[in-house]
């Protein structure tokens, strides 16, 4: 067990059951999704016995094949993180994880001996274990969730080149170091083309593709090399489609107007995201120093508004790693204050047509923030509700990032009803 549990944490915040009662208009499935993402899961031996590596999408933790994630009965994907049980820089001050167990022949989520609901393991795409002509397992070239595939265009983030420039909640700096400057730092575009020929055989499987990756700062102008990487990857993906445009999203570092126009015109891309990560400007500078150095808060905003002009309202959004705004010592000390700040800034963005999404912060081992603790479940549910209401108020469609195409964003999932 890598995390150290604060044995009194349940006394300090409202329980899952209390929050479900407190928010009668929020789906209990969404509350479950948020809390499981927040607290993580552990598997019992019986639950692991239900894993079939030939069917399920798994990752290795020590010797065990752990399901990469879970599906709820309503089709919601819960994206849990599977961290190796690293002893170094392991998160501290955390809460108990949910247990995945088997009760009455069903795989279920359990908390304090109470069954929360039934869950299902993700089934992997059929292409996953096939090999490219270079001998790479195709699942390593193009990854997947139950209803979308995604490509990590660049495995290393160059904000980490300058000491102290990486985002403080991010674990990519440590894990991506091994790819820095390697031949396989960038995805291989020929391999992407090969995988696409297998993907098209799987009817009914995918509803969209997402491209993301570490930032590349080099080029004639800042981020030009990153732009080239996305254009080439999208063109390789595009070889599988009969139409110019296909449901797709790039989540990149904030491109300027010229770069955005190229991205839109030279590829089949339909939607664009650049993540703000933290809405408060001062905290953005503290938590994401590299980003803030090259792309000040105001500049990111301007670039997002340009993206709306190019891609259209409803085809551009931005995300935050919700909860880091409460990191100590510089973050907000009150959840109410933090929510107020998030809603005010969200409203400003949405009034310019920018959609909102938030990831639930999961304290990552090896990140600079590994000692921090995440806010309460109440905070996340309140944020989810608020973001959704702001999206509705400004009539911004959620389709570009819906529960099938992503699944991680609770506020967007509220739009299913």
């Amino acid at each position, binding site marked *: 067990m890598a995390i150290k549990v604060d044995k009194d944490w349940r006394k300090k915040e409202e329980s899952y059951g209390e929050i479900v009662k407190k928010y009668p208009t929020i*789906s*209990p499935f969404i509350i479950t999704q948020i809390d499981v993402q927040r607290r993580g899961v552990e598997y019992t031996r019986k639950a692991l016995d239900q894993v079939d590596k030939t*069917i399920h999408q798994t990752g290795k933790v020590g010797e065990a094949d752990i399901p990469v994630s879970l599906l709820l009965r*309503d089709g919601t994907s819960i994206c849990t993180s599977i961290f190796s049980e690293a002893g170094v820089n392991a998160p501290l001050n955390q809460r108990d994880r949910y247990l995945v167990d088997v009760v009455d022949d069903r795989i279920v989520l359990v908390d304090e001996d109470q069954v929360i609901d039934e869950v299902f393991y*993700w*089934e992997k795409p059929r292409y996953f274990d096939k090999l490219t002509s270079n001998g790479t397992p195709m699942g390593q070239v193009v990854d997947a969730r139950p209803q979308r595939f995604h490509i990590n265009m660049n495995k290393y983030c160059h904000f980490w080149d300058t000491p102290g420039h990486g985002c403080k909640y991010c674990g990519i700096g440590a894990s991506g170091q091994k790819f820095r400057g390697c031949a396989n730092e960038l995805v291989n575009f020929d391999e992407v083309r090969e995988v696409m020929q297998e993907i098209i055989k799987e*009817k*009914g499987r995918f509803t969209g593709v997402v491209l993301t990756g570490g930032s590349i700062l080099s080029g004639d102008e800042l981020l030009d090399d990153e732009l080239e990487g996305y254009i080439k990857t999208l063109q390789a993906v595009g070889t599988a489609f009969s139409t110019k445009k296909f449901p797709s999203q790039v989540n990149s570092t904030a491109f300027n107007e010229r770069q955005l126009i190229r991205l839109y015109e030279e590829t089949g891309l339909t939607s664009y995201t650049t993540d703000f990560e933290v809405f408060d400007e001062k905290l953005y500078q503290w938590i994401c120093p590299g980003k803030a150095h090259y792309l000040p808060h105001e500049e990111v905003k301007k670039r997002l508004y340009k993206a709306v002009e190019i891609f259209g309202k409803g085809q551009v959004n931005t995300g935050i790693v919700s909860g880091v705004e409460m990191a100590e010592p510089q973050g907000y000390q009150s959840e109410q204050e933090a929510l107020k700040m998030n809603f005010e800034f969200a409203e400003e963005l949405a009034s310019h047509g920018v959609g909102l999404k938030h990831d639930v912060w999961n304290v990552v081992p090896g990140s600079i923030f590994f000692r921090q603790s995440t806010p309460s479940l109440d905070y996340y549910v309140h944020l989810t509700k608020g973001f959704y209401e702001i999206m509705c108020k400004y009539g911004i469609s959620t389709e570009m990032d819906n529960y099938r195409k992503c699944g991680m964003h609770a506020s967007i999932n509220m739009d*299913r*009803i």
Partner: protein
Amino acid sequence: MSEAIEGAGMGEYKNNVIPETIKKQVNDQSAVVVISAIGKNESIASEVAVKARIDEKDVLHYYELLESSRMQKNLVYSLWFDHPVTILVLTEEQQFSLRGKIYKALMAGYEFEREYEDILAEVDEDADLSTVWEIEIKEVEEVSYPAGRRREKQEHPYLMHMDHIYINPEQ
């Protein structure tokens, strides 16, 4: 249970077991299946199923082809907030009302992909499949008019206009 099944042919059926004849007609698609579900802001949606089937465990599978439809949203709502759904099964001879509870939205994985390919083959290549809704049937009632009339006379003998029991002045 066996009494109820015998009763089905007589138009007296009310139970939680779906009569075999109804199952057969749903599965060979000779019955019309209409589903109704409540949604946000108390909106009610009803839709004729493009496809439905009842499996060996009496779970009704309702195929929703349109991701953005009001029915799809209402079914999500009914699952999220634990509301029952109603399914009308209309055959040439009888009409049944089934009350169900949604168990699961099948929308990903190998089983879904098989269902998806079947829909493309059965409907047309342009069709899509959003979700196969798995609905556990909790109550089955025959609602054809003759059956209802007979039941009303038996169970509520004094609910009527009295001319049905006036003496005939011409006699």
